[in-house]
């Protein structure tokens, strides 16, 4: 493999990692603040993508579509928080897993009922279509570069929100001591609704952003959900920094594994066996990474005990 190709693949790894961060930021926020495992996170991602596709089809504007994705997912998030999720904060993880699993069933089939069984159309805005040439002569899709930029902005924004703003102080206080912050007169119920809606909006935003280069269809949220869990578990659940590091780690591992493993096995196996063994291993690689991290750091890289 040439150096140039290697650099391009590293860039792909970075891009995939940033994409994973976008998908998992909301999930880790919700877990960190409320201690809630939300399997329906993938459904919110799907809702964002569908809302964006519907609005893009109606208006032709990608910016409006992105705004619709934020609004729809936040709305759906606030709605389920008010009706269902808030009953789950004091329950054990098992109840949370099951209740949100039930929400997946409802959202998936409900979306199919509304939008039909066929994938929807959502395309990148014309401005960002096609490739740009980077220094060194690498041609790279403009839209993917934008995803990297947006993802980094979201990461910075979240760090800022948590560390620099009043809401962030409240969120951190709520993480540390729920009763304390309630005693200080902050309306904890409202704060939780806000955080959940924020997490949902992030999920929906990621769905719209990523949906433009993937397939907008029912069930699109489930693989994303599993990936997002892998990311935040590696990073340490509840840690934004952990989610960021975990996402990059998974992004690089997966991308480089897909590229390199078949070639590595090609050194000592005949080609078709090498491709087959290498690909099989590549598809298991991130789970191996996750199990490895947890065996040595049972609370993830940045998790608190």
């Amino acid at each position, binding site marked *: 493999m040439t150096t140039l190709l290697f650099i391009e693949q590293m860039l792909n790894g970075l891009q995939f990692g940033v994409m994973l961060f976008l998908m998992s930021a909301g999930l880790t926020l919700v877990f960190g603040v409320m201690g809630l495992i939300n399997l329906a996170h993938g459904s919110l991602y799907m809702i964002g993508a569908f809302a964006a596709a519907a609005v893009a089809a109606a208006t032709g504007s990608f910016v409006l579509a992105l705004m619709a994705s934020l609004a729809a997912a936040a709305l759906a998030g606030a709605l389920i928080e008010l009706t269902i999720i808030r009953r789950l904060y004091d329950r054990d993880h098992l109840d949370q897993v099951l209740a949100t699993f039930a929400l997946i069933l409802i959202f998936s089939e409900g979306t199919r009922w509304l939008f039909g069984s066929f994938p929807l159309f959502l395309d990148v805005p014309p401005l960002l279509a096609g490739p740009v040439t980077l220094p060194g002569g690498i041609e790279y899709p403009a839209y993917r570069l934008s995803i990297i930029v947006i993802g980094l902005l979201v990461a910075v924004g979240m760090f800022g929100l948590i560390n620099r703003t009043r809401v962030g102080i409240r969120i951190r206080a709520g993480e540390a001591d729920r009763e304390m912050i309630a005693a200080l007169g902050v309306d904890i119920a409202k704060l939780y609704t806000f955080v959940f809606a924020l997490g949902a909006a992030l999920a929906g935003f990621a769905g719209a952003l990523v949906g433009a280069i993937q*397939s907008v269809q029912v*069930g699109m949220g489930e693989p994303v959900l599993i990936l997002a869990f892998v990311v935040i578990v590696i990073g340490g659940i509840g840690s934004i920094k952990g989610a960021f590091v975990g996402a990059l780690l998974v992004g690089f591992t997966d991308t480089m594994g897909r590229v390199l493993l078949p070639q590595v096995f090609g050194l000592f196996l005949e080609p078709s066996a090498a491709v087959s063994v290498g690909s099989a291993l590549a*598809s298991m690689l991130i789970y191996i990474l996750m199990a490895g991290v947890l065996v040595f750091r049972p609370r993830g890289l940045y998790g608190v005990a």
Partner: protein
Amino acid sequence: MKLRSAALAAAMALVGATAQADVKVGMITTLSGGGAGLGIDVRDGFMLAVQQAGRDDLEVVIEDDQRKPDIAVQLADKMIQSEKVDVLTGIIWSNLAMAVVPAATAQGKFYLSPNAGPSPLAGKGCHPNYFNVAWQNDNLHEAAGAYANDTGLKNSFILAPNYPAGKDALTGYKRFFEGALSGELYTKLGQTDYAAEIAQIRASGADSVYFFLPGGMGISFLKQYAASGVDLPLVGPAFSFDQGILQAVGDAAMGVKNTSQWNKDIDNATNAAFVDSFQAEYGRLPSLYASQGFDTANLLISAMGKADIADADAFRAALKAADFDSVRGEFAFGDNHHPVQDIYVREVIKEGDVYTNKIIATGLSNHSDAYAGDCKM
């Protein structure tokens, strides 16, 4: 789930004493979850033909397999044991077909496949009661290989998901393609990001790309490929360019060549009538899968006209004769009960606001399959 069409229910009410035994069909197909679009098309195509035939001695029971093999097996047991059906049909996916078909045919039921055509059922595992009305799984890929030769492509990069149908696909392409391969990749099943693969394609020095990525995988790949600036010609099987999903791919699919045994512009009266009546009935253009469902029902109805289901040998012979007007024009079964047919090359075009295909060439004529020789029956 019992979804008898209204017309059928009305017809059922009028059931009178007929000379022949009634035929009961059990349709097991995917109606919920991710792959529901395909099953719904097969069902709609099938039921359209049933409705048009207006026979009162044909009953169809439809159930949803949720794309789960164990549910499909259970439904097959139910249809055979309690519904006492004579004919089974409807399965979309090869892995479900492998779970259901051998046991069903072993129990003396007929199975008419409207979509899946796994290689074991065409070769060593063939069965007199199993008829495939669509294709053997390799067919469209083989035609793509042949087409690549015809257009002078010398060096292909090929990729498919890492599962049996993916491997069959690339094997099928390689069986006919005479050029060199500059790369062969198996991606993760359900993968949605193809940046790394596209970078490898760009670096490979290939003159063409052949890919088999059904469903959402294909949509993702096509969109990302279009944005990458790699402009090698793409060839794929019809599955990623079907009416149902083409609208979701949009411009990214324009001009891509794909292989199919059917298209809505095949010029014959049956096809024209099918396309019109399907649009009138369901308000959308028919897909490849709908055409296969339609043909499957018409094959069955043609056999009912010639023989009594109670006489299995006669009924089998009537099915084998395939004496019906296919939307594909000429249609015949080979010795292993798989189609011998023309496979076309289509190009994605835009008609008004709708993305669709038009036939530009014939990939393979009167094509059978590679496994027929292994079939002993």
